[in-house]
């Protein structure tokens, strides 16, 4: 980045800034994994980087399992459209976070209740802290406009069932 800017200032190249940061609508698998993709490399927050490399809180890292996704990263809102008498319960785990994207696992208490009716249930995701989604090249954070996305949630397989086996 610094090299590009320097060359642009010297008139050697024409600097074209990267497009605004966007996260593409995630795909939700039948075992509750949400894959979120970024449209360009983003800075991975330092405490996440350190946490993923096994460093503890005293060293400035947080293990991914201790991150409160809902409170601090992305707010997930499950929209129940089917089987409205059923009580849906779920928790969230941050699975991975790289420059290219991140993964969140939805642990449904009873996966068989999901999207069991005529209409698929849906998940709306709202980025809570825009400063955690910053372009590596421009340093610009994601805008409010691009911070919300939604996806239908497919029917889920029971716990400890391989989706490969079910989809065959």
């Amino acid at each position, binding site marked *: 980045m610094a090299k590009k800017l320097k060359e642009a200032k010297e008139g050697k190249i024409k600097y074209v800034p990267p497009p605004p940061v966007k996260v593409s609508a995630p795909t939700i698998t039948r075992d509750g994994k949400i894959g979120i993709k970024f449209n360009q490399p983003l800075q991975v927050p330092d405490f996440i980087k350190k946490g993923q490399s096994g460093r503890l809180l005293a060293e400035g890292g947080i293990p991914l*399992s201790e991150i*409160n996704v809902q409170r*601090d990263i992305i707010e997930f809102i499950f*929209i*129940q*459209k089917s089987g409205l008498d059923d009580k*849906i319960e779920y928790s969230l785990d941050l699975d991975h976070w790289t420059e290219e994207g991140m993964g969140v696992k939805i642990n449904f208490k009873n996966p068989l209740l999901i999207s069991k009716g005529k209409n698929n249930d849906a998940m709306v995701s709202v980025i809570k802290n825009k*400063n955690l989604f910053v372009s590596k090249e421009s340093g610009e954070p994601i805008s409010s406009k691009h911070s919300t996305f*939604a*996806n239908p949630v497919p029917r889920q397989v029971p716990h400890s069932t391989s989706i490969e086996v079910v989809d065959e």
Partner: protein
Amino acid sequence: MLSKFEDEDDEVVADPDKPKEKPAESPVESALKQEKNEPEVKVVGPTIPPGKVLVDNKVMESLLKENEARA
């Protein structure tokens, strides 16, 4: 040559009888949309499993501030 009806400064006036085109529905609007003849949708937030260790709010706040300062 332009006729008196084709003056280049003329504004293009939309046909008042033509129905206005609806803007495309966003995925969020579509997710929240209630289907016809369906009961109201229910909104459900996540829970925290008992016994799960999560980073303290104050510790997180300070890490987020550090991250912001670094960016």
